[in-house]
């Protein structure tokens, strides 16, 4: 199939493939950090930092999201001034370079607090690059897409964020299984970062062969390119009010649904439910694998019935279903209660001694593996501090590496799949929705900002804020969900009242 524009010599399939590959790699680069948050926290911060190491690592992870709107402004402006093609080539180079360098940063034990500071700086570059990438790719594809199929064609770009996450999880699980848990925690976690440079090289080669967007080329030939896209986007009330509407009525709710379903779910299963490292990732991998085609389905459907109600239904279902879903996660992994009535066997204890963080005492950890009658297994570790000073020390007991039994495993996959399905509803049509909202001269700038505030700030802060809220005294493990539920509910109301369901046939104006 070819674009309607006679000046276009590339097929729409080539356009989508080249745009999507680069965007997928950028998402991969961006998400490996989040998927490895626990291990990176152990590498970047003192070994006795405990929960604050995870929160600080999630804060660095979130910093990358927070600067995305600034990347949208810088590169969006560039894209509206010099063109879509060269701008998102630049973002690709910045993203690939910074990801590769994160893989080379020494740990806290080697360079102290310089380690988290350097990673923070590189994480900020990643965020800026991603802020420029997505709007360019979505605009580029939409400006090539034939009339009446814009939702369908841009939905391929929409799959890249989820597939980037899928790829990052796959590379991490594969690397860990090949190297073993200890080598992976020591140095193997760097490999997924270093691999990025190869992927980016391939993508740059492909993108160099692409042509500029036909709509932008026509605009440039007519001398109608905006001289100041930032001023036109945000100082002109008629346009600025649409930026605000896109943010509060669509991208804000879409962002929290995206990051709850695809990030918080995995973080919750691993850190709150104490699910085994691989198992929590396999669950998300299966859920993403089965749900990804729905991006294209909902994108295509939005060409026929409009974008608005598909997106808003996804938000409303999230508001209604999140608490029951996460309550099930807690109940299905509550091994302390289950072992009271259904303990089948306990393995012989394994003892391990290590030096305590204070450098003088030593720690003795005794680990047993328990199996329940329903087939679930988990490890219970008891740590005793052997102090140089004689004192009474109460052993600390922790649960880890829980693995689910057959039926509970399938139900948890289905519940995560349902959350990713909601992601496909809110995210599949949104590129077409945003592209149609703004004129060509300032499209890159105008659509990028609400997209990246919605996803980068509101969405990207979900794991961080939810984990923070759940760490408060008196909170429950479900308390963190009030943040995505509240934001999605607010966005649903604004979207339902103010947004139009009309599909714009022309993006040539």
């Amino acid at each position, binding site marked *: 199939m070819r674009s309607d524009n006679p000046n276009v010599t590339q097929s729409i399939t080539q356009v989508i493939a080249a745009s999507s590959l680069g965007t997928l790699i950028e998402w991969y680069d961006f998400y490996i950090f989040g998927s490895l948050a626990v291990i990176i926290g152990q590498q970047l911060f003192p070994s006795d930092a405990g*929960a*604050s190491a995870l*929160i600080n690592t999630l*804060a660095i992870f979130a910093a990358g999201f*927070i600067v995305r709107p600034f990347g949208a402004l810088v590169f969006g402006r560039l894209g509206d001034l010099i063109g879509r093609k060269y701008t998102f080539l630049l973002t690709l180079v910045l993203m690939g370079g910074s990801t590769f360098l994160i893989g080379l940063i020494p740990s806290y034990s080697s360079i102290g607090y310089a380690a988290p500071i350097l990673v923070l700086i590189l994480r900020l570059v990643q965020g800026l690059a991603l802020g420029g990438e997505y709007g360019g790719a979505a605009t580029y594809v939409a400006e090539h897409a034939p009339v009446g199929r814009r939702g369908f064609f841009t939905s391929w770009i929409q799959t890249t964020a989820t597939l980037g996450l899928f790829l990052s999880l796959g590379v991490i699980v594969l690397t860990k299984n090949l190297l073993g848990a200890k080598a992976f925690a020591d140095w193997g976690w760097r490999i997924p970062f270093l691999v990025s440079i190869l992927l980016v090289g391939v993508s740059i080669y492909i993108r160099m062969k692409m042509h500029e967007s036909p709509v932008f080329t026509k605009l440039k030939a007519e001398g109608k390119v905006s001289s100041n896209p930032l001023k036109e986007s945000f100082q*002109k*009330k*008629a*346009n600025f*009010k*649409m930026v*605000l*509407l896109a*943010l*509060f009525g669509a991208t804000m709710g879409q962002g929290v649904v995206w990051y709850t379903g695809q990030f918080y779910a995995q973080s919750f299963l691993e850190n709150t439910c104490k699910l085994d490292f691989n198992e929590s990732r396999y669950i998300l991998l299966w859920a993403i694998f089965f749900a990804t085609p729905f991006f294209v389905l909902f994108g295509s459907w939005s060409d026929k019935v409009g974008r608005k109600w598909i997106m808003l239904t996804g938000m409303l279902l999230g508001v209604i279903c999140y608490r029951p879903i996460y309550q099930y996660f807690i109940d299905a992994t509550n091994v302390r209660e289950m072992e009271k009535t259904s303990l089948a066997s306990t393995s012989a204890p394994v003892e391990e001694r290590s030096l305590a963080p204070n450098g003088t005492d030593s720690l003795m950890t005794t680990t047993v593996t328990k199996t329940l009658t329903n087939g679930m297994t988990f490890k219970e570790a008891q740590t005793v501090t052997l102090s140089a000073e004689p004192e009474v020390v109460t052993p600390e007991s922790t649960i880890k590496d829980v693995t689910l039994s057959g039926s509970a495993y399938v139900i948890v996959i289905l519940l995560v799949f349902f959350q990713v399905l909601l992601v496909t509803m809110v995210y599949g049509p949104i590129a077409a929705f945003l592209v149609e909202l*703004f*004129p*060509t001269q300032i499209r890159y700038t105008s659509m990028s900002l609400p997209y990246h*505030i919605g996803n980068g*700030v509101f969405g990207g*802060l979900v794991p*961080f*804020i939810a984990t*923070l809220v759940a*760490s*408060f*005294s008196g909170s429950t493990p479900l308390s963190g969900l009030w943040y995505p539920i509240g934001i999605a509910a607010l966005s649903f*109301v*604004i979207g339902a*009242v*103010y*947004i*139009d369901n*009309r599909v*714009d046939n*022309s993006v040539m*104006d």
Partner: protein
Amino acid sequence: MNALKKLLGIVWMLLGPVIIIFLFMQAMDKIAAAAEGIARTNTTLQWFIIILIFIPICAGLVIFGYYAWKGEYDHLPESSSEL
């Protein structure tokens, strides 16, 4: 529908400052709890970042509410020439 859009505009204008006040009060409460040793983690920096980020967003919500109250969203543009 237009009357509802305008009425809700007032709600959005009020909601912006209410969110900031709520966040500020939460921050004071949690930071004090950490200082007294009641909370497990000191979250001063985290709260500073959260409030810093949400101030401009809440300002945007107030502007959105103002536009809604003034009827700017009664008719949405159907082509770029209306922008």
